[in-house]
């Protein structure tokens, strides 16, 4: 006998319908898609995209899926699950981050925190010539030219969305606060300042 009460509804909700469109956009995209772009493409409100993304985030997570939805570089993107990493590593390379030297990472850090800034400015902080390192980072697409000092001054560099994606940052604001860095910097500074004060007049 048919029960008049049906607990499971097969009727698709609007959010579920929109989720289909959103996941379709994400699977075609090769860069993280900002919510606004998804909304414009799907011709719906941003808040509705947010609901659809919530549904997708539940479905595409490490526990249940080989495809994982992540919020990165100011947008949403699919990536392979960590569980599939070995298989991926047999078929794919990661050329962008492969063999990044300590010098490259320090330069990237400086550009990420203080950018846009020029090569001489980076060199002043690192204490060495950075031309080669900067060229290498630009070639990898982790930094890019972003204006000049004055009008005809040195080229300034800033980090790219690719940088945020490679390092899994939602945005540059996901970097640790400058104040939280260099715990023993304060100690060095205090020591040097104390030394300077003690200097006989």
């Amino acid at each position, binding site marked *: 006998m048919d029960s008049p009460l049906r607990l499971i509804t097969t009727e698709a909700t609007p959010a579920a319908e929109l989720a289909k469109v959103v996941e379709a956009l994400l699977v*075609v*995209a*090769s*860069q993280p898609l900002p919510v606004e772009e998804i909304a414009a493409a799907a011709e719906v409100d941003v808040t509705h995209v947010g609901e659809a993304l919530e549904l997708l985030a539940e479905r595409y997570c490490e526990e249940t899926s080989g495809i994982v939805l992540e919020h990165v570089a100011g947008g949403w*993107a*699919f*990536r*392979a699950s*960590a569980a*599939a*990493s070995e298989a*991926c*590593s047999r078929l*794919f390379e*990661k050329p*962008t*981050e492969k063999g*990044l030297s*300590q010098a490259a*990472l*320090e330069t*990237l*850090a*400086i550009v*990420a*925190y203080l950018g846009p800034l020029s090569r001489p400015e980076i060199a002043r*902080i*690192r*204490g060495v010539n950075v031309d080669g390192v900067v060229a290498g980072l630009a070639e990898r697409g982790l930094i890019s030219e972003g204006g000049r000092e004055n009008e005809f001054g040195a080229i300034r560099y800033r980090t790219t969305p*690719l940088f945020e*994606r*490679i*390092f*899994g*940052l939602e945005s540059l604001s996901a*970097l*640790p606060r*400058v104040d939280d*860095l*260099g715990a*023993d*910097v*304060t100690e*060095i*500074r205090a*020591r*040097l*300042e104390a*030394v*300077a004060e*003690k*200097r006989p007049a």
Partner: protein
Amino acid sequence: MAVAVRELELDLDAFEGPFDLLLSLVLREELPLQEVDLAEIVIAFVEHLADRGELDLDACGEFLVLISALLELKARAMFPDEEAELAELEPEEAAEELARRLAEYRRAKEAAQFLRGRLEARRDLYFRLGPAPLAPRPERKLAPQSADKLAAALRVLSIEPPAPSTAHMALRFPPTSQFLERWRSLLRRRSRFDFDQEVKGLSRVEVAVAFLALLELRKQNEIAIAQAAPFAPIRISRADAERSLSWTAHSA
């Protein structure tokens, strides 16, 4: 690590003790940097590294920063008048500058450490990279065109258009007499009539002239005109008939 650099034991002509202390003395100006053989410090450090048997990159990095800062200070001390810019820095300022640079560099190093950690955490994560396959701009499709068609179109345009006719603007009034006759004959047959009914089907100009004819007749006291309310039908009657009617109305 970093501790190894600071506690590096030195045995130089001018100084004997840990590197740490040398730095303090130099900054306090208790030890003239000109007398310190910096090359010997480098040799001591390299020997120290060799003794440890492993390459400590962090220690090397910090040592390089410190030794290069010392070299800069020494160079400034040795050539005080070489350049105004270099001379500007007092030893105290130089010490502050050294501290500032060390702090700045140390921050960059720690930020780099953070980035290294992120990279490590994402080592096993793969994703698609590449330029976004943006939708191609829709091309505007044009029908095949020929120069002859364009010439033909231009030829049509080059002909001067005929002057527009203003014939419709000249109002041609039918003579009022035409309607005077018409109303008079009508009133000979009927004692009254409805204006709207009689002018039905006439043009606006003709209606206006017909109305003028009515006013003319009223002026000559041949007719009476009545209207119950604005826009109500206009009733026209013979003057004598109207007069008796108004008299009845007054007597009531």
